[in-house]
């Protein structure tokens, strides 16, 4: 009788432990990105004197605008199970395109529109190759990375095209009311991205294709069209990022945006999007962008050398992906 009692107590204690473990896990699972972001925010507020000020925070957001716009496009692409390694070069191409057009006297709105169309066409081309020729996105976009970069260099002959137009500079540096224009553009792109992804058929097909392409096809979904559409949409959005960047720099440089595709991919993955497709959210990506931007800003404020920053950023990304894989494994075993 006594013995029985003690085992039952042990079991209930055991159950309690399991209960706590599970509760903690659920919190961790649902909000690991949020928790990471909050921790980073608190730590930066404590160890630096300048981080927690309105000016600095607005600055962080403004600097993150280009990355954020790119990451929204990248989220779509990664959810389909694809990747876009050429995003950085797309930024360069659209930057030199818009600058070149303005320098040639094309009115600014028209120059912007043409640039966005060029971006869309670049995406359309990549999407068509990927979906109709069955070449992995990794390879197609890797090739486009160098092709587009080459085009940007050839077009500019290696020197940036300076744009002195004050109106154009407003995009990257100006304000609408109290809010920087770049932030407004970023928010609009994020909202469009979210609405497309969660509230339209297109968005639902994006998830489905990333998870089970064959099931999508059997349900009558035009998989090739949706995939091509994702890259075309992505290209147009990347062009917007390129325009904002060119405006901020007041020039279109073939070097601009180099390597930024990796930051965009990192932000998407930090935001909990599955690198193998089928899962992800714009809200997660926004948090991923915030983590990378705050990290950049904080490390600058701490006077950490840019070389050390690279290492720290890499470690943070590895850590986040590792946590995600633990989550995935845990989910699979339950």
């Amino acid at each position, binding site marked *: 009788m006594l013995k029985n009692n003690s085992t039952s107590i042990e079991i209930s204690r055991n159950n309690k432990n399991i209960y706590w473990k599970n509760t903690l896990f659920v919190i961790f699972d649902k909000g690991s990105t949020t928790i990471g972001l909050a921790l980073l925010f608190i730590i930066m507020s404590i160890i630096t004197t300048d981080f927690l000020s309105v000016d600095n925070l607005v600055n962080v957001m403004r600097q993150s605008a280009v990355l954020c716009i790119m990451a929204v496009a990248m989220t779509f692409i990664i959810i389909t199970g694809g990747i876009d390694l050429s995003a950085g070069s797309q930024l360069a191409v659209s930057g030199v395109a818009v600058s070149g057009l303005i320098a040639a006297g094309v009115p600014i709105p028209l120059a912007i529109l043409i640039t966005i169309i060029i971006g869309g066409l670049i995406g359309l081309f990549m999407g068509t190759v990927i979906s109709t020729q069955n070449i992995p996105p990794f390879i197609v976009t890797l090739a486009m990375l160098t092709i587009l970069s080459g085009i940007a260099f050839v077009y500019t002959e290696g020197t940036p095209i300076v744009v002195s137009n004050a109106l154009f500079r407003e995009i990257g540096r100006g304000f609408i009311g109290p809010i920087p224009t770049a932030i407004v553009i970023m928010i609009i792109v994020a909202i469009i991205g979210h609405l497309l992804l969660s509230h339209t*058929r297109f968005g639902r097909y994006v998830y489905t294709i990333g*998870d*089970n392409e064959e099931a999508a*096809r*059997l349900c*009558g*979904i035009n998989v090739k069209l949706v995939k091509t559409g994702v890259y075309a949409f992505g290209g147009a959005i990347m062009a917007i990022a390129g325009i904002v960047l060119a405006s901020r720099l007041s020039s279109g440089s073939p070097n601009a945006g180099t390597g930024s595709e990796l930051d965009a991919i990192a932000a998407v993955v930090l935001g909990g999007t599955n690198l193998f497709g089928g899962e992800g959210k714009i809200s997660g990506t926004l948090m991923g962008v915030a983590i990378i931007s705050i990290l950049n800003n904080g490390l600058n404020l701490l006077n950490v050398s840019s070389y050390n920053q690279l290492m720290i950023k890499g470690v943070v990304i590895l850590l986040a992906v590792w946590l995600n894989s633990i989550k995935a494994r845990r989910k699979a075993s339950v």
Partner: protein
Amino acid sequence: MNSPIIELKHITKSFSGVKALTDVSLTVHPGSVHALVGENGAGKSTLMKILTGAYSKSSGEIYYKGEKVENMDPKNSKKLGIHCIYQELNVANHLTVAENVFLGSQPVNKMGFIDWKQMNQAAKEIFASLQINLDPKQMAKDVSIAQKQMIEIARAISQDAKILIMDEPTSSLSERETEILLSLVTELKNKGVSILYISHRMDEIFKVCDTVTILRDGKYIKSLPMSEVKNVDTLVELMVNRKMESYFNKVDVPIGEPILKVQNLSKTGVLNDINFDLRTGEILGIAGLVGSGRTEIAQALFGMLKKDTGEILIDDKKVEIKGPSDAIKLGLGFVTENRKETGLVLKQTVRDNISLPNLRKYTNKLFINKTVEKKESEDYKKKLNIKARSIEQTISTLSGGNQQKAIISRWMIQEPRILILDEPCRGVDVGAKAEIFAQISKLAEQGVGIIMISSELAEIVGMSDRTIVMREGTIAGELEKDMITSDNILKLAFGGGISA
């Protein structure tokens, strides 16, 4: 009787406080075949995973040859000679058969390189001892599913397996392959290997098993020698705890006009001059061995397989079906045989899976009207009795039967005129089976023309109004209602009893 090789006593396993197994006991003797039966979700896989060490038990004891096993982790389990052949086979396609047998333990020579000669020889010997007819040097991708299974069995034997767990080993095998597998099971038993045999197919259990343990809702019901089990019905009753009058609730309805006609359909090496028609309200069964062209007919109808010649007529009008979207527009629906690979979107919810082909219907200009979408999913969840906490539950967490119901709902919303079901009840538990067949019957009542492909003769006999039997890409024969018997189907499928 000899002393048991493994004993599980009062095993309980809970996940986050939910009990998956309650007080389950199991005793396996050396050289015996022990069946483990129960509906999906009865706890068979959980019990199996505790034996292989994939899960750790919450309480209870495990004894190996009378000695208590303290920590049953995957390593320890292997050491004790416990091996499992899962439904999803673990074979590397780009390696040879012999390499697959010795995967991870390839014999090496003095230099540290793989000793191919010795490996091929050893594989040959194992195959010979099990009377398996397989060339060790063949690439694994070129062998059939049944042969891949044999590779896995040979691998287990090469690692000195004492206890072999087989999870639904025959679910994707043809009748003849099943026969071969069952004789292999007997062979293993004679060698002193104990086999834990998990299956939904009752006839197999009667053929090869010595003992049976029944689980229901994670609880142990009873173990008894097969000699004491009178017939299938006794076993099924123990499994579901309610009298199963029949799985099949086929209601005979007046059969209407032909809706679909297939004429001279051919595809080199796959289909040869296929002619048949389908009428409204009719359930047309397609029987035959796996690989006889049954699925290919469905694929050709649904635009997934390009035909060489032949015509498809709907309402006496010739139609061109270039892809699934054309087929859907013409009023066809297709429930495929591989739920996971071609049907489900596993990371998504029950609702997502139900509404997938129907999103156009819910879309108002640009945006999806989620209220309407949810309501319809909710309705079908109720209508088909899909057991899920809510329609927002991830579909991968549902049992096979409930997943299948979601897929059938998906097509029912389309209100198809022709519904093709390929193995509609594969890997579906007994209770859900009855519900699915009732739905199929109801659809026929509403005038839908139904094509049902199945390897289970009982399903064909129980459900179809008319049956065509396939053999090697041709229609071997057509059976009218009163001629549909297991005997007739098998005779046609095997070519009049004479194997080709």
